[in-house]
């Protein structure tokens, strides 16, 4: 992980900025839908988040700060794996550039989460060993191309919603790093 800033306010601001950028569906979901031909009005109703794929809004809000950071880190770790799988299904000639950018952004975000956890005195527990509580294991590999597309867009829909929810939790953090 990169070096950590000890400035709580600066770190919190950075985290919120990163998430504000990454929660925007134009950074990943929309280009994926275009590439797969799912960017059709009538199809969008089917591209909804699969329940249990990501921690719910409520689950995020009820966690203590350190548990919340741990959940964030392990969920993002899972996203990285899933994005690698998505990459394999893409045609060589049409690399999804946004996928590569998203993976760098996630690594940057995880780094800041680690720094915030260190600042709160709990970084060592961030090793992503256990699955995030409140999330079900990834779906079985898609049997065919259509299911693979459907699972992909549902997953990315959930990813953006999860970042949106997590950002809202950060926005309710006070101005000082008091433990809770």
């Amino acid at each position, binding site marked *: 992980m990169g070096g950590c800033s000890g400035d709580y306010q600066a770190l919190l601001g950075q985290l919120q900025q990163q998430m504000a950028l990454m929660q925007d569906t134009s950074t990943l979901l929309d280009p994926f839908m275009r590439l797969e031909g799912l960017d059709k009005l009538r199809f969008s109703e089917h591209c909804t988040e699969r329940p249990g794929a990501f921690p719910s809004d409520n689950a995020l809000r009820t966690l203590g700060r350190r548990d919340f950071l741990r959940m964030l880190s392990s969920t993002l770790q899972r996203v990285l794996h899933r994005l690698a799988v998505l990459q394999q299904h893409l045609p060589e*000639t049409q690399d999804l550039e946004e996928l590569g950018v998203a993976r760098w952004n996630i690594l940057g975000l995880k780094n800041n989460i680690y720094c915030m956890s260190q600042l709160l005195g709990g970084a060592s527990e961030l090793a992503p060993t256990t699955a995030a509580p409140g999330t079900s294991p990834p779906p079985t590999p898609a049997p065919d*191309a259509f299911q693979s597309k459907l699972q992909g867009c549902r997953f990315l829909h959930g990813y953006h919603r999860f970042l949106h929810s997590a950002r809202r939790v950060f926005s309710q953090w006070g101005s000082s790093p008091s433990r809770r």
Partner: protein
Amino acid sequence: MVFQIQISRFNSSNIIWVGNYSTTVKQNQVLHWSWESELPLECATHFLRIRSMVDDASFPKSTIWSNWSSWEKVDVQDSLGQDTLFVFPNDKLVEEGSNVTICYISRNNQNNISCLLEDEQINGEQLDPHVFAFNLNNVPFIRETGTNFYCQRNKTVKGIVLFVSKVLEEPKDFSCETQDFKTLNCTWDPGRNTDLRKHASQRYTLFEFYSGEKKLCKHKNWCNWQITQDSQETYNFTLIAENDLRKRSVSILFNLTQRVRPMTPFSVSFETVSATNAMMTWKVHSIGNYSSLLCNVELYGEGRMIQQHNVSVKVNGEFLLSELEPNTKYTAQVRCAYDKHIWKWSEWISQSFITLEAAP
């Protein structure tokens, strides 16, 4: 023997196809025959029966059909699983312009199912209480990640991706040449790329008739062939282009000595440059024993070609450029060709020089 085969769909009385298959038969031999259904086999139960007849002039009296076999039932729907809505065929690969039949199977009797091709709702033909079929004609290529067809009932959505590939073209401008009598460089224009995400299968193979040798090429528009030293002069190459759906080939016949394109000359230099003369020298890559090249020298002054000469060269080329103007900048360029048969010239190489000032 001649075998007559009947195929029915949904029930044995609904015969949809009849055909004959003739072949010679040996004792206890197992015969194979295949038939491709335009309707995905998952969409309907199929029935098949067969009868035979000896078709041999030496047994004229035996030209009567045997009895029909009993109907053989082919039902895939039992193995489909628990879902209530299915769409077939899965991940089918077809060529642009072909016709495709898609079907959905609904396990319950609700008929509030709508199906869309990309974003357009389309109507199907009911084949039986649970099965609807959709005939797509002349399907276009839309994108490499496939054409989406899906059916929805309330929140349930099931679909398929139809992988429509462009039609493989016959390679154009297929030709081979050598620079050194060691390697033949074959090139061609492959035309459209027909590879898709899960169906990247477009490949090229070189086959040489006289040697019987074959080579799978790594690239889609060029391939090297090692010239064996058994002094084979004539080559009959067939370039085979294929993908999962189609195969095409083109052939060329040529004499090796008529396909020599020398490498670009090198080390151009000017020695003993005077006010009005310059000795131009250059080197050429050897192209086998006893071979010489014809080199073309052009001299440019003030942007205009002012001299042109042909020089025969074996290893080192030289030419005296004369009648030059003092204290003037010139550019000379040289290229070479195989003197026995000019197939193609090498690339040019050029170099500039300035003549000396005239003596006072």
